[in-house]
């Protein structure tokens, strides 16, 4: 390549996904990338937290200690969030929404700890979108039956069906692209600041970390879970 695109040729700007090692599977080369390792680290943190929380709740005391207080706060917050949006359907979907909330939130803020956020890989967010998509349509068929689904597809007139179908398929794509692009833009911006301004990037990038990792990550987590809950409770409602 020529020198025209300076950015990608310079060695100290680095926000791409790297392969760590590869192996052969059915004649194809499959790479274990940095994303896999970051997801693994996030998962280990969540598992350790869960084990400690399980222990704290099992030996719960009447006057809660610090850790038990934190666990109760998190669970109560998630319960209130799901209950406020989904109403009577909330007991069924509390565990799913809580799980993806904690996973996405920890993934988004893992940029603070020097990892490359796993949600800045389209593979991860698309998997989350597909999970939500499956849940939406499973519940739609369960609650509205085949008749209701077909009636919803031919909403104003039957000729509208292809457009409605495209709208249904666009849901997981826009859901996952929104999360991906937000986290990726933060990652790229921080990589550019650390790469191009490395001489003067002393303390002030901390403020940008607060915005790009903490604030933006929390907002996008909230939005993803909110939209998931709205779509699912729409699919559950029969009219």
């Amino acid at each position, binding site marked *: *390549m*020529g020198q*025209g*695109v300076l950015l990608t040729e310079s060695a100290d700007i680095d926000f*791409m996904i790297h392969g760590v090692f590869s192996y052969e599977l059915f004649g194809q080369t499959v790479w274990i990338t940095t994303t896999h390792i970051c997801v693994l680290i996030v998962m280990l943190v969540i598992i350790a937290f869960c084990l400690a929380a399980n222990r704290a709740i099992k030996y719960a005391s009447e006057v809660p200690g610090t850790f038990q207080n934190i666990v109760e706060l998190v669970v109560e917050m998630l319960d209130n969030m799901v209950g406020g949006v989904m109403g009577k359907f909330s007991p069924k979907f509390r565990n799913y929404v809580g799980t993806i909330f904690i996973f996405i939130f920890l993934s988004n803020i893992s940029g603070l700890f020097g990892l490359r956020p796993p949600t800045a890989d389209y593979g991860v967010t698309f998997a989350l979108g597909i999970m939500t998509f499956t849940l939406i349509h499973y519940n739609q068929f369960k609650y509205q039956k085949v008749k209701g689904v077909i009636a919803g597809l031919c909403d104003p007139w039957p000729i509208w069906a292809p457009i409605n179908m495209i709208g249904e398929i666009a849901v997981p794509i826009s859901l996952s692209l929104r999360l991906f692009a937000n986290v990726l*833009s933060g990652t790229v911006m921080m990589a550019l600041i650390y790469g191009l301004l490395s001489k003067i990037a002393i303390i002030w990038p901390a403020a940008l970390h607060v915005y790009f990792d903490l604030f933006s990550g929390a907002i996008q987590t*909230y939005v993803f879970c909110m*939209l998931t809950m709205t779509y699912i409770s729409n699919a559950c409602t029969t009219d």
Partner: protein
Amino acid sequence: MEFNTNFILGCSAIGAGLAVIAGIGPGIGQGIAAGHAAAAVGRNPGAKSDVTSTMLLGQAVAETTGLYGLLVAMLLLFVKPLGK
């Protein structure tokens, strides 16, 4: 050809710059949403948390089109689909 590759890369950079103009629309939209939310809180301060969460949700959905422009720019700059 040497000239051809450089020419295509330069055009890709210009295209990336044009693609992020898509950020104008979401910016205006988010500003309007925030302004109306501020007016709503001024009229009914008790509903502040509800208004804020609704505003954030609407803004995040409105942001999507701008992010598509950003993604196109990223693809043009870093993946370079045309320069190969």
